[in-house]
């Protein structure tokens, strides 16, 4: 006889609320008239995320390993990561809901009559909202999943909507679709690796729960564990775009609609790093001799390659993509640190980086000419003259990426490198510092273009941001500034929440 399992609905509620919101969104798609759909969908998304956030606040002191039998562990770090995802998503949703970002009719062939008519009718694919909420839900599940299958399912739950969303850009649709295809094919490829690795971990431990894997350490020889760790890592490293599994990042970041890029860059990183941290800290901690050296190497490679290649970029979205690769390298040093400080630092870094990234992509969304967004760096020349505020904010964000003191990026870097140093990984600190120097080069170059070069004739016009974009960008920027100058609240929080139940 089957015994009905009991689920801890309270602690699962933040996720379930988002799932419910997504389903509600689907229903709205089915039964709601076209005219108000977008507004309703937006309201649902915001509301759901807010409720979820409030729910997370309520359960902040609760922890449970049996919330969903054995599939989910709600612990301090898990709640922090979920809250981060929700918060960033909440900011991102304002960008997503802003005008003119998504395709009018995805099924219409680009350039066709049908598309023209759809555009004329000011149609918009409002399905993006439920898809977005599904992705958020998946991202919330990903860092708290404690068995490989839930992990895999969560991975797919947030990946599939992203594949789709990447292809739904309103303009430059061929590029957008290509981004979707690339993202999808490579994502599925990486999933296959992940699954294959999961199989070997299962073979090694006889169970797929990551606690079980940790407990099984030493039960058999390491070969299966080795294969398992490597292949599971490939799947996860792909998601955080670590070198050499990073190739999709620039292409997809460039092709996807900018708000989605923002969302992807910020939230996927949080979710994926959450999962990586949990797996490596909880599941593979006993096998650290196996993976720490290579993750160290990958971290260094990622920092260096990300920084170096970014120099050669001519497109601002691609440049930020490479910057995000470099940041993944920095974040990996938090993984390698394998201590509480490393975890706390990573949590802090994720929030700081997420906010900055959202704001940066938000601004990219504002820089447009008659044909849509302008991402060619050469046409950003003189932006600071044209629109000093936008230029200054962007410059500030770049400085934050570069890790100049008094920005959140600096505190993050400091925290994460001290954790890495603490754990004895001095090489990673040195490499991090040097690649930061390289990275500074291209951030500074963009600042020059914005401020120190005279605008040419066909330069861009910055649109006056709508209220939604304003809200989103200003919240992200202001919190980024605050975190930079007075980081102690967030640091304390990160420290308090830096705890995985093993």
């Amino acid at each position: 006889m089957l015994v009905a399992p009991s689920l801890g609905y309270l602690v699962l509620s933040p996720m379930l609320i988002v799932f419910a919101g997504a389903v509600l969104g689907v229903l709205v798609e089915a039964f709601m008239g076209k005219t108000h759909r977008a507004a309703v969908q937006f309201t649902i998304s915001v509301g759901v995320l807010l409720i979820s956030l409030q729910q997370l606040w309520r359960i902040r002191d609760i922890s449970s390993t049996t919330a969903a039998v054995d599939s989910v562990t709600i612990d301090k770090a898990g709640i922090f990561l979920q809250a981060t995802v929700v918060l960033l998503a909440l900011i991102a949703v304002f960008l997503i809901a802003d005008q003119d970002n998504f395709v009018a009719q995805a099924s219409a062939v680009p350039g066709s009559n049908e598309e023209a008519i759809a555009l004329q009718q000011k149609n918009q694919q409002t399905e993006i909202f439920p898809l977005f909420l599904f992705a958020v839900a998946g991202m919330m599940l990903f860092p708290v999943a404690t068995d490989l299958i839930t992990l895999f399912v969560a991975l797919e739950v947030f990946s599939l909507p992203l594949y789709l969303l990447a292809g739904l850009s309103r303009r430059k649709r061929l590029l957008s679709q290509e981004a979707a295809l690339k993202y999808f094919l490579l994502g599925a490829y990486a999933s296959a690796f992940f699954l294959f690795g999961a199989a070997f971990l299962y073979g090694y431990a006889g169970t797929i729960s990551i606690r079980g894997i940790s407990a099984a350490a030493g039960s058999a020889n390491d070969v299966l564990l080795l294969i398992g760790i490597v292949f599971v890592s490939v799947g996860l490293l792909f998601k955080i775009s670590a070198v050499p599994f990073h190739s999709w990042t620039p292409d997809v970041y460039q092709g996807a609609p900018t708000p989605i890029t923002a969302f992807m860059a910020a939230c996927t990183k949080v979710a994926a790093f959450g999962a990586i941290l949990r797996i490596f800290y909880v599941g593979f901690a006993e096998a650290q001799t196996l993976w720490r050296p290579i993750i160290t190497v990958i971290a260094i490679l990622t920092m260096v390659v990300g920084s170096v290649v970014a120099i050669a970029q001519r497109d601002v979205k691609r440049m930020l993509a490479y910057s995000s690769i470099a940041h993944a390298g920095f974040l990996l040093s938090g993984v390698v640190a394998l201590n509480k400080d490393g975890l706390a630092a990573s949590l802090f870094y994720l929030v700081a980086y997420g906010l900055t990234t959202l704001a940066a992509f938000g601004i990219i969304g504002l820089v447009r000419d008659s044909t849509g967004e302008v991402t060619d760096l050469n046409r950003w020349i003189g932006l600071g003259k044209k629109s000093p505020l936008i230029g200054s904010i962007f410059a500030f964000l770049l400085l934050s990426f570069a890790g100049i003191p008094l920005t959140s990026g600096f505190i993050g870097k400091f925290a994460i490198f001290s954790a890495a140093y603490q754990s004895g990984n001095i090489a990673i600190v040195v490499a991090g510092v040097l690649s930061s120097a390289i990275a500074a080069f291209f951030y500074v170059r963009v600042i020059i273009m914005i401020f120190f070069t005279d605008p040419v004739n066909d330069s861009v016009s910055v649109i006056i941001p709508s209220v939604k974009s304003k809200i989103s960008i200003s919240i992200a920027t202001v919190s980024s500034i605050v975190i930079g100058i007075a980081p102690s609240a967030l640091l304390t929080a990160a420290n308090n929440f830096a705890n995985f139940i093993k």
Partner: protein
Amino acid sequence: MNLLTLVGALPLVGAALIYLIPTKDSELVKKFALLVTSLVAIAAIFLAVGFDKSITSLQYAQSYSWIPTFNINFALGIDGISLVLILLSTILVPIVILATWNESEGGRWSVKTFYVLILILETMMVGVFAASDLFLFYVFFEAMLIPVYFLIGGYGTGNRSAAAVKFLLYSLFGGLLMLASVIGLYVIAGNQIGATFDLTQLATLEIDNQTENFLFLGFFIAFAIKAPLWPFHTWLPDAAKSATPGTSVLLLGVLDKVGTYGMIRFCLALFPDASKTFTPLIITLSVISIIYGAFMAIGQKDIKGLIAFTSISHFGFITMGIFAMTSQGMSGANLYMVNHGFSTAALFLVAGWMMSRRNSSTISDFGGLQRVTPVMAWSFFIAGMSGLALPGLSSFVSEFLVLVGTYTRYPVAAIIGTLGIVLAALYILIPIQKTLHGPITEGNENMKDLNLREKISIAPVIAIIVVMGFYPKPVLDLINPTSAKVVVDAGYSDPIAEVNK
């Protein structure tokens, strides 16, 4: 409110207030900036008045918790060395503002922005010298780059953005190396005595040799770039050539001092053993800087480049004095920092006036100025004489102290360094001959002499240069106890002990 905090915060408040003035009313902006910075200078002088020379511990000390997670405190406090540098910075700023009244107008941005940047920079300068928390120092050290970067890039001349970038990247590179060392130190502190950034506590750490050497290098390279020491100097001439004269004054006169200040405050205090290990190397680099900078200065065709290279030579003296590890060398180096600040300020300001009148910075474009613009020529001449350390002017005292202090420990270095004074004569007299002497070059016939504003602004600098040449005692009294303490703390004692008289 602590007076030190006041000195540091006042410019920032001023910057905020300036922001409220309408952009168009640029004269009001300038006047207000001048007022604020003058008040700061006065406050700084009160700081010196209230300073107790007899104790070597930090004064005006205060500490507020900033980032408790890392035990980072907003801790300020000054000793003699910091005090004189704060005085230097705060006194120079109003002078620069007055002297370069119109320099902000040709910039990429508004006059208002210029002064906001200057005021922010002043806060950073005070902060960097007053910080007694390593992390806080680092924050000021790095954040200071940003206003300078915009000042060079936004208001400079020539290839300004390239120069600004070079400056920024060099400094960032050094800063990041230092960051690695800061992190290392923090972690080691965490393992030994609990996480802290307090300088006095950090100085008590026991670090194994190899680690100490690496940490030392991280700090030292950052400071050597800032200072700038050969071969980390190539950013300076470019930056100085592109920056406006006022910015150059702040850049060479004050900002670069952060490098040498850092060597004393951090390299020596935190890593005495490593300092000992690297001293021969550093002394060598200093000597190379002295000679190399001088030769390069001789070869310059651009007046700003010339001043920049003379500074490189002078910074060689300063680092040599610091690492000679004698009280004479140390005090001399400290005094040199102040003196170099003022004499470079004089040189750059006058050169700036010359250049703006002629619209050129090429030395050969000038000639016969002594007869056309005698006051300007004399100002330049005196500044130049201070640059070549003529006895009776301020630089001489410090240069000689450095040389004497060095000789007692490293005679060869001192001897080679002394040869630098011949080269100094060349690099100062050649441009003086070309600009002030000889027939009046075409285009200079109707050049205007200094106006009242310019005279008022240069007069105090020249007065300081002359007075400090004959009577450096007040400043030396501030410096001496601290430098003696630095030498002792680094584990050295003077080779020539006190003679009983």
